[in-house]
């Protein structure tokens, strides 16, 4: 096995670690949204769309990590 291949794999693995804290943050956002719905059941649709917006914005970080790891695995070796 070529050692470069292993190094690229380690880099790709480190890149997707961007999703580690994102999972925690999204879980917290969903938990607070559930709390808010429990307090204010009539505002459910507004809370849901705001929660999805917030989760989607914070998910961007994890997605960039995924993008970097995909680039590392499929594009970088062929350069």
């Amino acid at each position: 096995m070529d050692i470069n291949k292993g190094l690229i794999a380690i880099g790709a693995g480190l890149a997707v670690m961007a999703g580690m804290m994102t999972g925690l943050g999204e879980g917290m956002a969903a938990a607070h949204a559930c709390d808010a719905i429990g307090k204010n059941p009539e505002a459910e649709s507004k809370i849901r769309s705001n929660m999805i917006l917030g989760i989607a914005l914070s998910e961007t970080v994890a997605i960039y990590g995924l993008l970097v790891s995909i680039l590392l695995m499929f594009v970088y070796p062929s350069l």
Partner: protein
Amino acid sequence: MTIQSDVYVIILITVLLGVAIVLLSKKIQKTDPLQKPTGVLVPILWAVDIVHKNVVNNVGEKTADVLTPYILVLWVYIFIANTISLFGLSSPTANLSVTLFLAFVTWLLIQITELKYQGIKGYLHGFLEPIAVMLPMNIVGKFSTMVSMSVRLFGNILCGGIMMQLVYAATQGLSNSIASLFGNSGGVFNFIGPLVAPILHAYFDLFSGFIQTLVFVTLTMVLIGNDIPEEVRNGIA
């Protein structure tokens, strides 16, 4: 140059949806609007009604008439594209070209809404806020919506597909090693796969596909709605 197998699935879905929509719209035009709807029209009218109410909640009465057809197309196309992998075909949304174009249309709609309500001067001035030094950041920020929306859908669906392939490979290996215990050394039928796969298909294809459609559609509505002033949204102006 080889053609990816995704392309055939994309063409297949587009043609099927186009035929279905043309046939249904002919049927709707023929029916009397004063009569009660019957047969296949009932769920369709119900779905259109729900989506229209949802769009009105987010962008207001005025824009909703223009936006509802696009949102309906997004719902139907993305959901069918995400769940077509249940039939053994590759998902079109696991191809970045498809999701990038969908996100590009949404992004274009957002820019048009901004231009409409802020004017060309306000739109260009938005690049210099809060201070002029932020210009490169704001230019990147404009395009980041497109990139993040497309890669979110693409990444989720692609990862679901890769997971299912890994599960099938793992269960195949497990089946082979169990069969070799009983003296059968060749490749055998993957008999563990059908026991494990259905629940995972339900999660990765149906549930994840539905949630990603919901997220894409909701983001489209919310991002467009954010650029519309409050008075227009509430129908006062």
